[in-house]
């Protein structure tokens, strides 16, 4: 059962990823990414990370992607011309991507980390629950938590500054 779910979710994730990079219209790319994000949420659930999965759906697929949709609607989605100004880019990029993938896989599969071949230790019931994550966030990882909030503030301010309309010159 788990395997089936895994493969379905994996297919969804891969499909979404392919869609993102292959679609001409940026809007379609956004939609493909949403599909990808949902599949990832399923995968997180399979890995007993309930809170992360929920956050993925609510925050990522919910908020961030909505933002994307708004911007795509504003900016519009033109296609890109076929001509490639950088010589060799179109050829080298997939090649390198494949090379990298091969290297990473080899690294993982022939790794001395034997634990990789297992499902992981048995975990208690509340593993990955919001309570558990929240406790960690507020106890052990308080500083990163606070830092992230500052980061969010900065990003918000930055975005307003960047995208705000320029004030007209007053005489």
């Amino acid at each position, binding site marked *: 059962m788990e395997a089936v779910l895994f493969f379905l979710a994996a297919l969804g994730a891969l499909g979404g990823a392919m869609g993102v990079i292959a679609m001409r219209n940026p809007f379609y790319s956004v939609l493909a990414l949403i599909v990808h994000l949902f599949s990832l949420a399923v995968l997180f659930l399979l890995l007993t990370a309930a809170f992360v999965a929920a956050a993925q759906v609510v925050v990522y697929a919910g908020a961030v992607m909505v933002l994307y949709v708004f911007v795509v609607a504003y900016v519009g989605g033109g296609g890109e011309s076929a001509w490639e*100004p*950088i010589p060799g*880019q179109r050829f*080298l*990029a997939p090649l*390198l*991507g494949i*090379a*990298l993938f091969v*290297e*990473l896989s*080899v*690294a993982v599969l*022939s790794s001395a980390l034997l634990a990789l071949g297992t499902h992981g230790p048995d975990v208690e019931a509340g593993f990955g629950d919001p309570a558990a994550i929240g406790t960690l966030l507020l106890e052990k990882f308080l500083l990163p938590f606070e830092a992230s909030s500052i980061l969010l503030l900065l990003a918000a301010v930055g975005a307003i500054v960047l995208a705000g309309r320029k004030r007209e010159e007053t005489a």
Partner: protein
Amino acid sequence: MSATPWAWLVLLFPLLGSIVIGLGFRVLPRRVAGILGTVSIALAFACGVGALLSLLGDEPEARHHASSLWDYASAGGLDIKLGIFVDPLSIFMVLVVTGVSTLIHLYSYGYMQSDEGYHRFFSYLNFFVFSMLLLVLAGNFVLLTVGWAFVGFASYALISFWYRRETATRAGMKAFVINVVGDIGLVLAAFLIFRELGSFDFGPVFEKAPEVFTTNEWTVTAICLLLLVGAFAKSAQLPLHTWLPDAMEGPTPVSSLIHAATMVTAGVYLIARTHVLFELAPTAADVAAFVGLATLLVAATTALVMTDLKRAIAYSTMSQIGYMVMGVSIGAYSAGMFHLMTHAFFKALLFMAAGSIIAAMANDQNIDRMSGFGRAMRFTSIAFLCGALALAAFPGTSGFFSKDEILAFAEARGGMYLIFTVLGYFGALLTAVYSFRLVFRVLSGTPCKEARELIETGHVAHGEARNPATGEIEDTDVGFPGPEHHIAEQTWSMRAAMAVLAVLALVGGLVQIPGVDDVVGRFLEPVFEASPLAHIHPSIAEDYVGLGIGGAIALLGIGIAYFLYVAQPQRPRQLEQRLRPLHTLFANKWYFDEAIELLVVRPALAVGRFANRVFERLVVDGLVSGAEGTVRGAGGVVRAVQSGFVRSYALLLLVGFAGLALYFLLSSS
């Protein structure tokens, strides 16, 4: 007070004078600056007398004191102190230098009155006296070299005093460059002395030298030859003499002080001071004597045909210093120093008188245009005559006794040295001829235009301001001679100085009459005690025979001059035609300038040109531009990577990452 504090004071006053006048040139009025300059040297003279008196209070054997202010360098085996050495020889030089300098300062007070650079003049002149005193009072070879170099600089500054005149600056540079050659010789000699004897101080050096060196060993000969290079450059002996005639570009007081009485005698002083070394290297001493003799004759022959008044007197200086160099090289130390003293008197006087005459000629120095000043300028003529009589060694004058003492010594030494006596007398004949040539040409005869103007109106002739050598027009502002010309008849300070010197030139020899008194000789005796040569004394009879011959030669020379220039004035022209090649040789100063130009200047310029064209351009520039080009090329290549395309940057990133991962994979397997 013992002698050394007096000696330090001697050094102090001229230095203070120079600094005060130099720094205060805007605030001090002219007269004050002149008075200050003169008084500081007079004070130095007074302190010199004080040092003399205290020295005389010592026992003759103990008449040498060294004193040092502080250690200049004591490290690594070196022990150089800022030290002076007071003994009869240095006090003698101090007295001569300060005495004559005081008179020359007094003379300049009047002569340079209308010059814009009055303060600068006195500052430089005081500095020169300070350097010369430093040279003679120095107690070790390092301080001697310091004084030597300072004197060279002061000479340069004063020769090119009228710095807007191109001929003057060129002459100054020539003097300085040749003097530097001498400095090199002196410094190398000092190095060798230190290497062999382990000290720079005079006392230890002269004590140890006879023990360390054997006679004519190559080291001591090398030291002496190097010292001679220095001495010849400073004293304008062959072949380093070409700067002296050109140095006449400086104002007349400068010629009179530096190039007659003091700086050019530094070489003579050096040889006398280091006589211990020269006696250990007789070959070098003989070389010096022969060079002195050669200079004597070459300069005397050149002076015979010189038409520039100051240059003629300059060659006369060169010739007389040849006598002195010859004297101290063959062992006639006190005779040589005595001649130094009398020469200072009469040569300074001759230059002063010449300055007065040239001023009357509106700065024209050509004797072909001068005549009849005997009537126009009584005082100056008499002074000039006194000087010329002493120069020609007219019986009874100071020059008579001093010159003949040297020649008598040469005869007493015998053997090869008789050459010096014979040729020395021949030189004396030439001296008498040329000195009275000047007297008769300039002073006698019908007055020339300027002289007539002076007789009739009492005013000094006023021409356009011109460079006497090249005839270029000048103005009379700073850097050029002033607008007014001052003659002795109208300026009391010039008269006072010349009068004192005239008296000294005439009677100064009376201190050293053979058989009667021996003031200089006995005073200097302690210095040369240990020298075997100094004990050679001609007998009284030999002395008087020498004096007789000398007197006769002088009168003969004066007679010849009278014959050629007064009785039969067309004769010189005829002689010139008959002996044309000889005349050309003399008139071209024996072609030394041309020889140096060919042998030294042109090769140096060629090397410079080669260095500039080939070495600099190809090698140095090539290296530098090559490096630059390489860097620029490399930069160009690297710059191509910065294309601005984000995606290509990302690609490179990925390539790097993949490469790194591959490396780690391979290295861990």
